[in-house]
């Protein structure tokens, strides 16, 4: 997509290795260490909020910003609402994708 922005192949593989380390260190941590180490309770409770915070911080700007400016009412917003409604109501793993994309395309066609 953006070849000049994405760095060289070596940079890319280095990034993959970093993401892998940041994944496998947390995963293996206590399984490998066994009963020798315990996480402080306060830290453990604070850490529970990290994934929700990280996910929201990634999603929200992508939905409400259009070309860098705040433009909350756009096709992506309608699709997002549909995805949240579907995902909270039904457990079918395909449905959020089908409904979300259908709403996105319909809204794009209607607002165009």
């Amino acid at each position: 997509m953006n070849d000049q922005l994405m760095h060289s192949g070596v940079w890319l593989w280095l990034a993959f290795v970093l993401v892998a380390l940041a994944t496998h260190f947390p995963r293996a941590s206590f399984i490998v260490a066994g009963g020798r180490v315990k996480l402080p309770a306060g830290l453990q409770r604070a850490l529970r909020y990290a994934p929700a915070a990280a996910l929201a911080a990634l999603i929200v700007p992508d939905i409400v910003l259009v070309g860098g400016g705040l433009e909350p009412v756009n096709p992506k917003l309608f699709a997002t609402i549909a995805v949240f409604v579907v995902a909270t109501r039904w457990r079918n793993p395909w449905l959020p994708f089908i409904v979300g994309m259908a709403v996105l395309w319909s809204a794009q066609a209607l607002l165009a």
Partner: protein
Amino acid sequence: MSNDSFHQGAKEGFVRFLPLSIGLIPWALVTGVAMRSAGFSVLEAMGMNVIVFAGTAQLGTLPLIVVGAPMWLILVTALALNLRFVIFSAAIAPAFEGVPWWQRIFSGYLLTDGVFAACSPRMLTSNDKDWRLGYYLAPSLWSWVLWQVLALVGVLGATALPTTWSLEFMASIALMVLLVPFVVSRPMLAAAITAGTIAVALASLPLRLGLIAAIFAGIGAGFAAERWTQSTLPKERIE
């Protein structure tokens, strides 16, 4: 090692997890499509898929990798997305007692949300270490194979799809569906709303620095909301 109880555990673990594993299919496909749309070659996409083996971390760091964000920012974002595994790892660790260290490292690589949620309760109540290992490894290896094969389908299929279809939005949908089970409690909702708002407010900062500020603000808001909720409960609940 008792092969019989390992095989018995493997069989039961696989049967337990099989229906739930269907949920992996759209994630794997979407992750494959998203990596290809980000401009990765087939080799790069599958390389990332094998060495990272984590949908959330892959989808979450993709926008940062595409814009060539600094390495530390990619690292911190991946860590934030994966911190839940520290908690899962701590919770499931007693089930690996007596297992050789190299099998534990391999088991750590394979740890996923789905297998943790589906298999850890029975693993923690069984006192047969071979049965436990089988019960864990069979569904975990099945997840791995399913993840690689369907991501490859996504990677190879992505080029056949026209860009006007906005298929990159499927990656956002995947992140939303991951977010939904978290935001059932008020402190989680507070964490998500705060992080989302701060991320938008600071979106113009260079190198997506606003993202890190947003994550920390979200964690702080969640913790504060938890404290505030607890202060309305009887005193023995407060630590």
